[in-house]
């Protein structure tokens, strides 16, 4: 698997109003391979959005080097090539939809790239089908639910045919149904179209559905591993202001009470199985 995004020794900070330097990223190194589905977790202000903004050249590192699809993000001439290949979806679905009709909005990116009209038409239709919003192509965005708007935003990105999509807390403003819709959509894009996905979130159950979880805390990488491994560190995660799934937490609590249970319980089924064998073992 070739590397698609890479950060090497990235440091980034800004001056606050009182002239105090606020370091947001401290010497971060991170490499993401093509086709991965990676979650970046962290509390507000942990630097998770800042690192994401480095990957499509919204921000450039003050120290260190970031490359996206092999292109150095400091190379201003290549900035639109980077942005075409590394798409970005933001938190507020309302503030990233430009046009008054769904299909016109999805066409916005390809239009900016100067693609031929017939090809745009094809890409727009395909993108809308991929996110399951084709039947809404003539609707006005304000008639849609939050989850639907966010899927339109995703369609607008994939119509540019990127290799990678970065989603910056795409579900933070959605209800549970909208969250499920968005997550199903991005998993599908990753599995069926092999698009690399970087999902920034603070919902643990979303991170648990990814292949790899990166946890950030105060501008540093805390963990970078499989969800199973990361969530086994219940105590540390709680200390840095994050949650773990209730199932994981229950097993952790019971282990602390001296009961013998595995430390890598993640899903509901695993928890039920583990508790069943625990209780049956003493029957």
């Amino acid at each position, binding site marked *: 698997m070739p590397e698609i995004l890479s950060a090497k020794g990235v440091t980034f900070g800004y001056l606050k109003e009182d002239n105090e330097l606020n370091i947001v990223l401290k010497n971060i190194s991170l490499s993401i391979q093509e086709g991965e589905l990676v979650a970046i977790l962290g509390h507000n202000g942990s630097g998770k959005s800042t690192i994401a903004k480095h990957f*499509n050249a*919204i921000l450039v590192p003050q120290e260190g080097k970031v490359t996206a699809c092999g292109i150095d993000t400091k190379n201003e001439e290549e900035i*639109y090539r980077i*942005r*075409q290949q590394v*798409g*970005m979806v*933001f938190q*507020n679905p*309302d*503030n*990233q*939809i*430009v*046009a*008054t*009709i769904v*299909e*016109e909005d999805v*066409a*916005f*990116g*390809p*239009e*900016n*790239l*100067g*693609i*031929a*009209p017939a090809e*745009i*038409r094809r890409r*727009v239709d395909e993108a809308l089908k991929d996110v399951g919003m084709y039947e809404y192509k003539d609707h*006005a*965005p*304000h008639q849609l639910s939050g989850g639907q708007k966010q899927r339109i*935003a995703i369609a*607008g*990105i994939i119509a*540019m045919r990127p290799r990678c999509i970065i989603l910056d807390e795409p579900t933070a403003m959605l209800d549970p149904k909208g969250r499920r819709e968005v997550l199903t959509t991005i998993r599908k894009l990753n599995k069926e179209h092999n698009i690399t996905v970087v999902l920034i979130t603070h919902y643990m159950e979303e991170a648990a559905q990814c292949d790899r979880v990166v946890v950030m805390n105060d501008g540093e990488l805390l963990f970078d591993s499989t969800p199973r491994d990361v969530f086994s560190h219940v105590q540390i995660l709680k200390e840095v202001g994050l949650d773990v799934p209730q199932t994981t937490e229950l097993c952790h609590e019971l282990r602390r009470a001296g009961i013998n249970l595995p430390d890598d319980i993640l899903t509901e089924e695993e928890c039920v199985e583990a508790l069943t064998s625990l209780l049956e073992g003493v029957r």
Partner: protein
Amino acid sequence: MLRDITIGQYFPGSSAIHKLDPRMKIVLTLAYIVMLFIASNPIGLLIGILFLVFTYGISKIPPRMILKSLKPVVPIIIFTSVLNMFFIDGTPLVAFWIIKITLEGVTTAVVMSIRIICLIAGTSLLTYTTSPISLTDGIERLCNPLKRFKLPVHELAMMMTIALRFIPTLIEETDKIMSAQKARGADLETGGLMQRARALIPILIPLFVSAFRRADELALAMECRCYRGGEGRSRMKQLKIHSRDIFSGIFVAICIVGVILINVYAPVILPM
């Protein structure tokens, strides 16, 4: 309460008028206005009226919508009629004290009223049958030649599109902020003018702050979607002139020629 305001007066439909190219519709509407003002003869004006009856007929827009669109201009019609009636010299019909109503005055008033009514009804048909977005699109493309004179045509059209896109969002937001401030006891309904103006501050400031935040985020999202102005941009929807556009053009041209011929051959009885 604010949600009831409809923006734009577009009536979706699939009539021949709806399907016309927006550029053609804009040009034809302008041509129609010209026609109304060169018609200096009752028969000429009649053509203008019949033209409206015909086009509204095929567009399937309910005729009561004409009345709705006329409502705001009623004061203007009355005002110009009164001016014309009293201040045009000619054969007196009624005269008392210093007021004198002349035949010429009455005819001019009637003609002017018909012109204004037709003008409003005609332009309303344009907005009734053309969505704001294709109207913007049509204007942008018609104005394209002006780019040579350094007129930012694309930018203006983009501003228009974004405004249309965000009007419903901001209306909804205003509604929410008003409710939130009312929940903190803000009194928006009573008091004198000054007091009411002051009561708007808790609504306007959050609204502006939010609009700026939205603008900021939207600009970033647009840049991430490779937006860099009109240069090198293509469009998914291409406007094409169909045979129906050509026919409608010919039809309007015939009407105009007809009006001119009537003007030439029938006795001119009205001032232009």
